[in-house]
């Protein structure tokens, strides 16, 4: 997993809960890195999950909610760092371009990146269905990213999980314009 995910996560925790919570998480997790992450590095994704679970435990916030919230935050980071990918007219067009354009481009920059599959299906002007497929089971992070995008394009959406398969490896997400 790319280092930026770790660094931004810890930034968010620091921002929301303070350095103490950051330290607590690092201390209580068995991390090979001892909590030292750099955006240009690549780290084991298990460390990320461990930290999220720890935060959940500490703050009594469910993991999905944390992931969603982190996704929303992370989209802002992405939109500032990679504005060329946001150059789309509307939300649905953007979402539709992830699997076919954005992810292939990302792979050119980071050949070792492991990216989920995103299959988008437009259902009329106001509805879209997305199929998330990844062994990481991070659909909620994806939902957070979608919500971040929704805010970015100023299109309010009701986002919901329609169906989960294979223990979260395949999740069908629906978007309905509010």
């Amino acid at each position, binding site marked *: 997993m790319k280092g930026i995910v770790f660094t931004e996560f810890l930034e968010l925790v620091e921002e929301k809960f*303070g*350095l103490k919570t*950051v*330290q607590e998480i*690092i201390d209580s997790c068995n991390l090979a890195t*001892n909590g*030292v992450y*750099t955006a240009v*590095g690549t780290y084991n994704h298990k460390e990320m999950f461990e930290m999220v679970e720890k935060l959940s435990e500490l703050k009594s916030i469910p993991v999905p909610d944390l992931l969603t919230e982190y996704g929303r935050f992370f989209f802002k980071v992405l939109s500032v760092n990679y504005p060329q990918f946001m150059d789309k007219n509307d939300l649905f067009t953007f979402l539709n371009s992830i699997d076919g354009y954005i992810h292939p481009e990302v792979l050119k920059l980071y050949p070792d990146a492991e990216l989920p599959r995103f299959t988008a299906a437009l259902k009329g002007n106001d509805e879209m269905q997305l199929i998330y497929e990844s062994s990481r089971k991070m659909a909620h992070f994806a939902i957070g990213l979608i919500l971040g995008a929704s805010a970015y394009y100023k299109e309010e959406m009701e986002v919901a999980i329609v169906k989960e398969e294979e223990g979260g490896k395949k999740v069908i997400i629906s978007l309905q314009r509010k």
Partner: protein
Amino acid sequence: MEDDIKYYKLALAREKAARKAAEKILEDKALELYQANNELITSNANLEETLEIRTAQIKETEKMYRHLVESANDIIFQTDINGHFTFVNHTGELITGLTVSEIIGTHYTAFVDEAFHEGMAKLYHNQVENNIESAYFEYKLKTKTEEEIWLGQNTQLIHENNKPIGFLAVSRNITERVKSDNELRRSEEKYKKMFEGAFDGMMRVDVNGNFVEWNSKMIKMLGYTNEELSAMSVQQIIHPDDAEKSKAYFEKLKKEGYYTNYNGRIISKNNRIINVEVNSTATYENGEISGSIDNVRDVSERVTIEDAIIYSEEKYRSILENLELGLLEVDVEENITKVYPSFCAMTGYKKEDLIGKNHSQFLLHPDSPEKMEAQEINRGESEASVYEVQIKKKDGSYTWVIMSGAPFKNRNGKIIGAIAIHLDISSRKRIEQDLKQANRLAEESSKAKELFLANMSHEIRTPLNAVIGLSGLLRDTDLNDVQTAFASNIYNAGQGLLLLVNDILDLSKIASGKLELNMESFDLRQTMSTIISSSAYLAEEKGLQISLNIQDDLSDYYKGDELKLTQILTNLVNNAVKFTAKGLVEIRIEKIADENELHTLKFQVIDTGKGIAPDALLSIFEDFNQEDNTISKVFGGTGLGLSICKKLVAFLGGDIYVESTLGAGSIFTVILGFEPIQQYDLIEESVDFEDELNWENVKILTVEDNHLNQFVLKETLKRWNASTDIAENGEEAIEILLEKNYDIILMDMQMPIMDGFAATNIIRRELKSSVPIIAFTANALSNEKERCLAIGMNDYISKPFKEQELKEKISRQLKLNVESEKYILSKEVGKENTDSTIFTVNRLFEMSRGNSEFVNKLLDIFIEDGELSIAKMRTEQDADLLGKLAHKIKPSIDYLSNVHMKDLVRKIEQMDFVQSPELLDAFLEGLGDIIAAAKNHLKQS
């Protein structure tokens, strides 16, 4: 606070560690990049070097190949997958005559003979489709000259990325080989054809005489099977007596290479000896004689065919000669090319008179060219055609012939001329003309006969009219007994003579098929009573009784030809009375069948007379036949009566026969069909003759040139208290009619100056008079009545007339007249005062056939209309409208009132009241009276 510092320190430490980690990563990446760059530079240099070496190698190889390709004797070329040339070598230029740059881009079909396009396209396609690496085929090039160039081509598929992208082909000029192949094949085929298709037997034998090859004719001739023959030698079929001779010929063959016209005998399988003529040629192999090819002709067969042809020709020649057909041959221009003796015999020409002459121009009658033209066209279509034409003979006279041109063709099917065949039909034509002449004469004679009969009837009837009429009148004058007897005798003799004339006329009518069917409704009893009354006088004299028995189930009224029935039965009854001295004559009528609204009636006339001898019974219905010659002396008559009866019955589709016992009497039976009808069908046609006419008031004009007839008529009319004016002819009649009106005209048809037809025509067309005219004629020709009626006459009386008939016919015409009241003395009217009967319902009853309900209904309507009319007419001032009101009520007046009122209503209608106003008052008063009487009538009923 301490905690915070602690955490910041820890965080800072992490950040430092992270920075170092990041720097390390970047350092590593930079080194990686440097190394990668170095490797790239090195490999690039290596690549360039290799490329150079390879390029040089390829160039060398290519040069070598190119040299090979260009120096090859074969055409080497490449095409793309669609067959367009992408490369061709120099040889290609030489063979096609085009430069390489001209060939490149062209499609291969531009060089291939069209006959091979389809086949080659299939081959190429197949090669691509089934991925066939290499294929060979041969084809002909398309060339601008007659020269044929054949190529044998080896084609390979060219691939790129496993996909076929074109063809590489090597083509070799194989023209010489193909030509020699074809030559060989042709010569083989020719030999095969000649051998197998020969008219004669063909065989090939080896030096020992063994059969090597033979054709089917040979098999047919010899009768051996192929298998048998293949194991045989020539020696086995040669007649033993010819063995030496044949050996000698074979030696000759060996020495000279051939022999001709060997005549010998061979023996077939079934031991038939065949005369043959053999022609042989030696065959060679490697310079050595290997055998011979022999043509074996069956000469015996030829002899038979020749005989048959001669026989056939002989046969047809004799047939043609016997038919006496004149034959000529002409070319396509119809110029005579050959003359057969038969034609000379027919026409008297010599051969040299005709050769080279044009057939149509020289021989045909000038009236026939269009026929020949038609024939010429037909000949073009190769059809034989037949005409009847006249041809000119040597002596200049013409003779009728049937001519036929049968075209004949040369071997190529082109018409080169025709055989003109002439059959002399002059005698047939003569007979034909004789027949026409005879037929015309017969027709003329028939017409003359008819004219004679018509004239005779006129000539005889005119004086007869006088004899009968005057003797009848004379008989009724005040005479002594002897004079009365003389007058009666004259009268009876006249009647007899009239019967005779009528019989002859009837017979001629029947003979000429001019009988007509007159369908009329009649009262059977009335008709029978008329028939009986005609014989009553004679019967009474002889003291015979004539009884009539009509079966109950017969209808009273029938429709049919009453006239002919009357004629038939009158004759039979007359005969019965004539031949019966004592006893009785009975007429029996019964119905023997009743189907499809037709009653088949059996009329029997039974007498107790002298009877007829059995041998005479058969011929009794023949013309001019009486039982024996004495009859005419004793009983009179012409012998035509029964013959006429039989013919009339046959005409009506019935049957007549006689049974008789000599001395006991005869029964004549007539069977005829009539359609039964109801009484009312008869009413319209009947006129009530019981009404007596007031003859003094009838104004009659008689138009008649014969003074005797004038006298008879005047006297007859005088007896009825009638009188007549006389016109001598039509012209005089017209003059009189311009001066005076008549109620009826009796018009003779044949008169000098102007005849009855012309006069009637003027009366109707120019005088526009509708006065009834009765034709009065002695001419009894069949269509006379139709002619009279057609020209506008009302009826027809044949002279000499019967007084009763004349009276009835005149009465009928007068009563049909609208204004007849003035001379009709109806029985009713006769009894009562005319003026008092202003109202009568009799006509209404008659019209409604006695339906009093209907009559009352009509009277109701009349009363209502009448009262309304009276009210209107009293106040109406407009004369025109008054006239119209009168017109409207006129039909009612005609039905209900008397002649006075009828006259009056017409005067009002014509607006006579303008001059005589009292007429209107009289009319309205009368109308009032009629209405009152009608009301009274309704009250009583």
